[in-house]
Every structure is written in C-alpha cells, then in structure tokens.
C-alpha cells in the first residue's frame, strides 16, 4: 500500500515538473522594473520620433535598431537634436534586448531576442515608414 502511495507521489512530482517545464517555455519574463522603465522611456520618445518615422527621416534597421536615413526630412530647428534622439533610442533598445535575456536567466539569448524584435518592429510598422529589407536596402512599407 505504502509503496504504491510513494510511487504515485513520484509520478505526481514528475507530472508537476513536466507541467512547470512546459509553462516555463510558454512565456518569456518581461515584467521586471528594468524592462518597464525602458519601455516607458521608449514610449515617451515615440511621440518625438513618430513624425520622423512617418516622413522617412528615421527608418527601422534589419538588426532591430533605428537609423537617421534622411536628414533633409528633419526640420532645421530639430537637426541638432535628432542624432541624440536616435542614439538614445538605440541605447534603450540595446538595453531592452539585454534585459529581457537577463530576466530569463539566458544572457546568451540577447542576439536572438534582438533578431526577433527586428522582425516584429518592421511587421508592426505603419504604412509609409521605412525599413531595411533582408539585403539592407531601405524600403517603404
């Protein structure tokens, strides 16, 4: 009797472990204070960047960053700031990819996460925005 109980207990443990395992793979951890802070900073910056995505001054690169691709599309008054804005955005993006990898205990995933984001940024970009295709050429969506 007791042996069967122990055996059952063992199976239950195995099942729970398997379930936990499956659950761990279903989602990536993104709810950390560091990730939330980066997200907030990028969201605020988006109000400044949005017109530049729209007029093609700034485009989405194929490696998950943004790039100033047409400085002539930036109004004179903002030309001095635009480089700083693009640099700050890329800094946040680098930190975001690293933080997601770290939050999941897999720092070595950073490049895979960046590649995933690169695809998703482009996929979710609005019509008219510019992005780099697989060959690196600027393309209008």
């Amino acid at each position, binding site marked *: 009797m*007791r*042996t069967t109980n*122990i*055996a059952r*207990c*063992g199976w239950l*443990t*195995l099942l729970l*472990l*398997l379930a*936990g*395992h499956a659950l*761990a*793979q*279903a*989602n*990536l951890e*993104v709810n950390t204070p560091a*990730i939330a802070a980066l*997200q907030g900073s*990028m*969201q605020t910056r*988006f109000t400044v960047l949005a017109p530049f995505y729209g007029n093609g001054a700034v485009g989405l690169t194929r490696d998950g960053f943004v790039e100033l691709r047409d400085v002539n599309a930036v109004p004179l008054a903002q030309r001095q700031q635009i480089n700083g804005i693009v640099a700050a955005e890329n800094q946040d993006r680098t930190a*975001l990819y690293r933080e*997601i990898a770290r939050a999941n205990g*897999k720092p070595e*995933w950073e490049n*895979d*996460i960046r590649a*995933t*984001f690169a*695809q*998703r*940024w482009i996929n*979710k970009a609005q019509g008219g925005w510019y992005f780099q295709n697989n060959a690196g050429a600027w393309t209008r969506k």
Partner: protein
Amino acid sequence: MRSLTVYAGLASALLLQGCVTINIYFPAAAAEKAADKIIDEVWQLKKSIEPAAPSSTSPQAK
C-alpha cells in the same frame, strides 16, 4: 521501500536537470509574443485608457 523513495528523488533530480539542459534552445514563439506585447505598448498600438481622459475633462471646461 526506502530505495523507492531514493529512486523517486533521483528521477526528479534528473528531470529537473533535464529542464535546465532542454531549455537551452531559443523559444522563438514566446519571444515573438513578448516582443509584440512590448512593441504594442511603446508604439501605443492598443489604446484602451487614453480616450477616456479627454471626454471626462471636457464637461468640466464648460
């Protein structure tokens, strides 16, 4: 009977380790889901709270 407990313990330990080793591969689908969630918020593609703010303040203005 004691050996059975030992075996069960050993089995769970092995399985736990299996989890650690199996998890090395990159979970592409999960990463895509996580990316979509973050991008939606950064680019505000799913607005839910924002429209409520102007409508609640406009009656006060009058």
